[in-house]
């Protein structure tokens, strides 16, 4: 049946939606960045599972192995993981600075403030 052939993609879509919901629905910035990372990792699983061949092996040349899994998605994802950590680092640095200027990293409280405070706000 068609459904069973695609089960890996369904799992990926569910994980993606969990990450997406976290980014949208939670106000705390650290939580949002974690949701973004969940989303990213689910996309990695999508690519790697698309590159796998059942019965293949790791794409490292060995004597006696005929079928290798596709190495091209691995290359893409390797770069993507490192770029993901770069983005996470910059996002977290921004969160730290926001915390210092405004005293909070929650969205709702930030929307109610006018500008950087003159005195620290304990949230």
């Amino acid at each position, binding site marked *: 049946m068609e459904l069973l052939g695609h*089960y890996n993609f369904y799992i990926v*879509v569910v994980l993606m939606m969990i990450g997406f919901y976290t980014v949208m629905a939670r106000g705390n910035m*650290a939580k949002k960045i*974690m949701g973004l990372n*969940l989303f990213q990792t689910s996309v*990695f699983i999508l690519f790697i599972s698309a590159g796998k061949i059942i019965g293949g092996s790791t794409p490292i040349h060995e004597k006696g192995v005929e079928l290798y899994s596709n190495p091209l998605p691995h*290359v893409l994802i390797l770069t993507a993981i*490192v770029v993901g950590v770069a983005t996470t680092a910059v996002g977290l640095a921004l969160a730290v*600075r926001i915390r210092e200027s405004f005293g909070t990293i929650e969205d709702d409280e930030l929307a109610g403030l006018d500008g950087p405070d003159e005195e620290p706000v304990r949230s």
Partner: protein
Amino acid sequence: MATALAVVRVHDLFSAAMLFSIYSLLSAGLFVVLDAGDVALTEAAVGAGISTILILAVLALAPRYERAPKRLHWPAITVVVVTGACLFWAVSDLPPFGQPDNPIHTHVAPYYIEHAYKDFGVPNMVAAILASWRSFDTLGEAIVIFTAVLAVFSLLSKPPDKRAGLPEDDR
């Protein structure tokens, strides 16, 4: 998947960071099962190691508990359900999992697989592709991570003003 759900629901950010680390480690294990050795090593090191450390570093500077949302966020849930349904429908057009004659395996990949050891003498095909056939992209990636450190430096190099207080210690 359970860890992913737990990361969303838990309000203690410290536990969320630990669960996030477990999620990364589980996906690294998944990569090993899917025959991706390099990617599993990188994801385990980066996701379970570096991302978690950075989140914990931010937690040292920000309150530990997030504000619990009072009610379910209905717009977000609708968007998520609609997008999820569209994606489910779109994904069923993709080729089935793991068949050797999927289109993804037929264009450039057989050339790379055959010629990595013959032309270069390098058994690790992923390294050969990364560093030799597609090495321009790897240069771009090194530049991206260098730019990230420049950005973080430009944000965090000045010492903070004395007026910003420490988060409450609720341990």
